[in-house]
């Protein structure tokens, strides 16, 4: 049992060993495809990290599930498939959720996939229907993630000018691509990578960016106010953008954005539109993910026996919420948008999904 932090007791607690092995032992009906099993374990171990990588891996696994799908005897047409396949996917999705809560982008992709399954043309044969879904899913990844990132990096690089000092936090694929692109285009600028415990994801970004020859400074989030004076732009990644313009991102992002706001430095968020959500959140308490509390224990093991100390709890939050007021601009594959335009994009682009 995990020691619960009262304010966050409503969230699924981080109990990796218990939940996963127990779940697997209980399942005798063999209803989870090995690809999904493998993916779930990787997700739980944080071997696949980042919204884009997780969504892509999930769609790939589901694509295998669909290709290997064999309907029961009396369900052999495409029309039956659209009804039956959905029930097949359900336990796999809940297994993935048990491994690690899904991010908004994954949720959106699942909803989209369910819509595609429900609206399969009834005239298709089983094989054609499988092929059709497979192509659709590949298309989703290329269009919404791969191409989207390419366009975002182009737009973002266009906002990096000579002599800029760019501040980035943790690791975002889109931000990394933008920095590399701007550097390749010959813009001379400096990057300050801000990082934080316990994940230290900024190091990976630092590795990639400095290897390309970009001048970098690496600091911890506690020295943020010290460097903010010289920063000209802040680039952030996002796990999701909500309908009220708020951003869900790696914990610490909100502090960075608010500090930038304080110093009147423009804050730019790079986010693919498939991560846009019609949900509204006002704080990062109602909905969040709890990470492994033991990650917080210092490497010199100062806190190693924290479980034995009465009333001592450790809280390792994964995400936080950045209010729309501290953002200047959202860069999407559709171009530059103010954060207030998230609902417009959802309204104009997801008409077919909400039907």
């Amino acid at each position, binding site marked *: 049992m995990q020691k619960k932090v009262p304010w966050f007791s409503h969230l699924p607690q981080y109990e990796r060993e218990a939940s996963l092995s127990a779940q697997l032992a209980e399942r005798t009906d063999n209803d989870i495809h090995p690809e999904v099993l493998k993916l779930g374990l990787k997700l739980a171990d944080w071997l696949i990290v980042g919204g884009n990588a997780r969504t892509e891996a999930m769609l790939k696994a589901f694509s295998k599930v669909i290709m290997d799908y064999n309907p029961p005897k009396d369900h052999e047409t495409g029309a039956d498939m659209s009804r039956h396949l959905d029930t097949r996917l359900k336990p796999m999705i809940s297994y993935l959720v048990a491994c690690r809560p899904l991010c908004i982008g994954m949720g959106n992709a699942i909803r989209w996939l369910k819509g595609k399954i429900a609206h399969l043309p009834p005239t298709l044969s089983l094989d054609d229907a499988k092929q059709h879904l497979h192509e659709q899913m590949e298309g989703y990844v290329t269009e919404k993630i791969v191409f989207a990132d390419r366009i975002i990096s182009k737009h973002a690089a266009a906002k990096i000018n000579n002599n800029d000092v760019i501040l980035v936090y943790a690791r975002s694929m889109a931000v990394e691509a933008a920095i590399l692109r701007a550097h390749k285009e010959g813009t001379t600028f400096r990057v300050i990578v801000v990082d934080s415990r316990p994940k230290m994801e900024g190091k990976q970004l630092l590795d990639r960016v400095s290897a390309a020859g970009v001048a970098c400074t690496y600091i911890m989030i506690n020295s943020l106010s010290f460097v903010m004076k010289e920063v000209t732009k802040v680039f952030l990644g996002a796990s999701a953008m909500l309908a009220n313009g708020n951003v869900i991102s790696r914990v610490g992002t909100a502090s960075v954005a608010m500090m930038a706001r304080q110093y009147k430095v423009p804050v730019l968020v790079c986010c693919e539109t498939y991560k846009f959500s019609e949900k509204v959140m006002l704080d990062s308490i109602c909905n969040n993910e709890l990470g492994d509390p033991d990650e917080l224990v210092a490497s010199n093991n100062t806190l190693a026996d924290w479980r034995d100390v009465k009333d001592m709890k450790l809280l390792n939050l994964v995400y936080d919420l950045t209010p729309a007021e501290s953002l200047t601009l959202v860069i999407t594959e*559709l171009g530059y948008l103010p954060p207030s335009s998230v609902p417009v994009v959802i309204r*104009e682009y997801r008409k077919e999904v909400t039907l």
Partner: protein
Amino acid sequence: MAEEAEVVRNFKEWMEKNEKGAIAVAAIHALTTMIKNSGASTIMELEILLKAAQEQLQEMKFEGQRSKVIQLTAACELFARHVTRTALDIGDFEACKQRLIERGMRFAEQADVSRAVIAENARPFIRDGMAILVHGYSNVVCGCLQHAAKSGVRFKVIVTQGQPECVGFKTASTLQEAGIPVDMILDTAVGYVIQEVDMVLTGAAGVCESGGIINKIGTFQVAAIAKEAKKPFCVASESYKFCRLYPLSPTDLPDAEKEPTPRVEQGIKIRQPPSDFTPPSHITLLLTDIGVLTPSAVSDELIKLYY
């Protein structure tokens, strides 16, 4: 080459004929005429021609005037978008071309109508006894004020000089002819008079995606003072001036709007930026022909238009 140059000639002819005409109308007129006279037989050809024409128009120099690139680009992009849309709706090229020419010709009328619509939309915001501060010269702003005066509202206008071109004098005389009492102040006196002002009204060279505006130099200063004094800052603008730009700071402008190289007089370096960017946080409302909008609604309209 002849055809490309023709675009510019048509544009200039139209501007000469219509003294109060808008840049966008002239541009659309020139582009429509180009389509009419072109021998293009596919949409692709047409799009290539349009692109070349756009570049030609953007390179145009306006002597003694501020650059018109933002308005020109907005108009050209709007037209190009319209061509793509029409081409998708109508498969047949000739029918499509015909429709484009028809719509292009009607654009001038619509532009006139849109000024009247803006004036009507702005009417309720101008009330008896108000003092309105105007910066720069704008046909739309003058139209709004004239319309309000004509419908019997009694108000006074404070006009800034509008250095360095001193366009304030043009605004002042236009308004005075319409029987509106006008005071002229120095550009530097805005802070002095702001307490007696009830509303600030300006035009815009371009309305950006964020809802901020690019306008005559000094607009940002006026907006900052108005915000400090908690006075509403309204912008009157046609919706065809909405453009797909997203400046991050007052200096983050398209190249053509950027500061020219400083001239040196008596050993003193003189900088004269022609335009500045006023961020959306300083703008209360935009009075447009598609309604009275908050700054964030501009992006909504652009998204609807361009996707």
